[in-house]
């Protein structure tokens, strides 16, 4: 039973475009929503995270948008670069406990 549903499975964008990856969840008790970035041959690394008391968090070109009523959150990558090509995972957690992972999105940015 997938508690965090991530889409799309793969995504190709042009350099300079906006990449958008979406995640949906059911459990309203989730209180922490991170995004991890994984390059080929490396382990995932925390990219950006949000808590449900804010609707948006921005760090450089990366933004999380959070819609509590729709139980959805998304990652936006502005001005996408070839170096952003990676697999992105969303996740959710309750009260600092175990992370529940999405299945991942493979992003390719064409030069």
């Amino acid at each position, binding site marked *: 039973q997938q508690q965090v549903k991530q889409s799309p499975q793969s995504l190709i964008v042009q350099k300079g475009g906006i990449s958008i990856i979406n995640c949906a969840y059911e459990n309203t008790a989730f209180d922490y929503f991170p995004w991890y970035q994984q390059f080929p*041959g*490396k*382990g995932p690394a925390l990219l950006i*995270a949000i808590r449900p008391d804010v609707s948006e968090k921005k760090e450089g070109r990366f933004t999380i948008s959070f819609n509590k009523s729709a139980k959805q959150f998304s990652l936006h990558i502005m001005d996408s670069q070839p170096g952003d090509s990676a697999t992105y*995972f969303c996740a959710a957690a309750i009260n*600092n*406990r*175990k992370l529940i*992972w999405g299945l991942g999105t493979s992003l390719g940015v064409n030069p």
Partner: protein
Amino acid sequence: DVKVTQSSRYLVKRTGEKVFLECVQDMDHENMFWYRQDPGLGLRLIYFSYDVKMKEKGDIPEGYSVSREKKERFSLILESASTNQTSMYLCATTPPGSYNEQFFGPGTRLTVL
């Protein structure tokens, strides 16, 4: 910076062999995790440990065991490797009191023939 190292980047074993995957962290973190990563299936938690000699089953513990004799070292054991255990294995660690920000090692690509 947190450093998480895994004993091998690539490993090839035969069906029925006993396999040890080791993970070492240098940040004195209490919590350590073992995941396997398969295409289309994301990251699945096998076992985690919140202290020396303490362990809890994750979502897919069958066919695996773990050992944590020292705080910095967490081992994953495949008692009798099978071809369906061919996968990427990732170790992670988090600071005390938190499971949220996980620091991952580079992974071990295990192939069971």
